[in-house]
């Protein structure tokens, strides 16, 4: 299926949504979608039998600071059934950087969204576990933003930020046992 057919097909599935196909250097189908339309487009891509993009291969962000809209979230989707590769992009303003999560559709999005939150500070609304992934949990700032001071010197912390209390430890044990039984 070529890009035009795919976009037409998608457009039929979601009539009111603005899909903005763009040319890309690697000739991969690339479509810009607005932030509000992303959940419905994502659901159609996953569930529509002609597309069935069951694999979210990559979810990342690009920072175009100081340009606005500053962030672009990139979703690379693969349909194993139909041998399709598709790139979806969402533009986000720097002051209002949040987008709906897709982790309930593709479980692989869970950690990828955590990574994007950790590195770029983009909030994923409805994410089940919005914690930092790579940096220490008590870290300040988002290192992959273009305006982040890369060579800052901070004293390393040697206390562990994730010290659980005894109650928390016991509660998690009980929860674990209940999930196994």
């Amino acid at each position, binding site marked *: 299926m070529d890009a035009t057919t795919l976009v037409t097909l998608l457009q039929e599935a979601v009539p009111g949504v603005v899909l903005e196909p763009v040319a890309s250097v690697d000739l991969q189908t690339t479509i810009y979608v607005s932030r509000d339309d992303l959940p419905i487009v994502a659901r159609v891509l996953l569930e529509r039998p002609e597309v069935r993009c069951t694999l979210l291969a990559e979810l990342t962000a690009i920072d175009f600071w100081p340009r606005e809209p500053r962030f672009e979230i990139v979703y690379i989707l693969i349909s194993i059934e139909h041998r399709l590769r598709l790139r979806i992009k969402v533009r986000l303003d720097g002051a209002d950087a949040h987008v709906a999560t897709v982790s309930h559709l593709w479980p692989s999005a869970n950690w990828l969204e955590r990574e994007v939150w950790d590195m770029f500070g983009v909030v994923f609304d409805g994410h089940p576990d919005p914690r930092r992934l*790579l*940096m*220490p949990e008590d870290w300040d700032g988002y*290192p992959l933003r273009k305006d*982040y*001071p*890369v*060579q*800052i*010197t*901070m*004293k*390393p*912390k*040697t*206390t*562990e*930020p994730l010290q659980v209390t005894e109650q928390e430890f016991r509660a998690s044990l009980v929860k674990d046992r209940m999930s196994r039984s």
Partner: protein
Amino acid sequence: MDQDLKTELSKHGIFATTFEELYNWGRKNSVWPLTFGLACCAIEMIATTMARYDLARFGAEVFRPSPRQADLMIVSGTVTKKMAPQVVRLYNQMPEPKYVISMGACASVGGVFDNYAIVQGVDQVVPVDVYVPGCPPRPESLIYGIVQLQRKIDLQKLT
């Protein structure tokens, strides 16, 4: 004890020593490092223990997988700020007397990684006895570092 008298006695087949010398001799020739690698320097550390370089010649081949049994921590590689708490925890779990070798440029001064995520020298978080330069150091360098540590152990006083 007088050094001349010791030499004289040894000519007659009598070996005289002090408890301190014997104790340090035993300790310095049985340094047990911790099985603990952080980055590419760890590969050189592994190579050091293998047949070609054979760290066993210096008594330090028994890499212990538990910090409770180890008395040398070879910080082999880049220490990230996220890893620093764990490095300190491992160090605290080791029994006294304990030693630290900072292996390679990253562990010693941060190396090429002059950025927010990397500890600029592991001596900011744990006390270091011997620094081994190199990126990564060759196994000979690490062996030289361990020999330096052995000299340091030998000079320690019991009292």
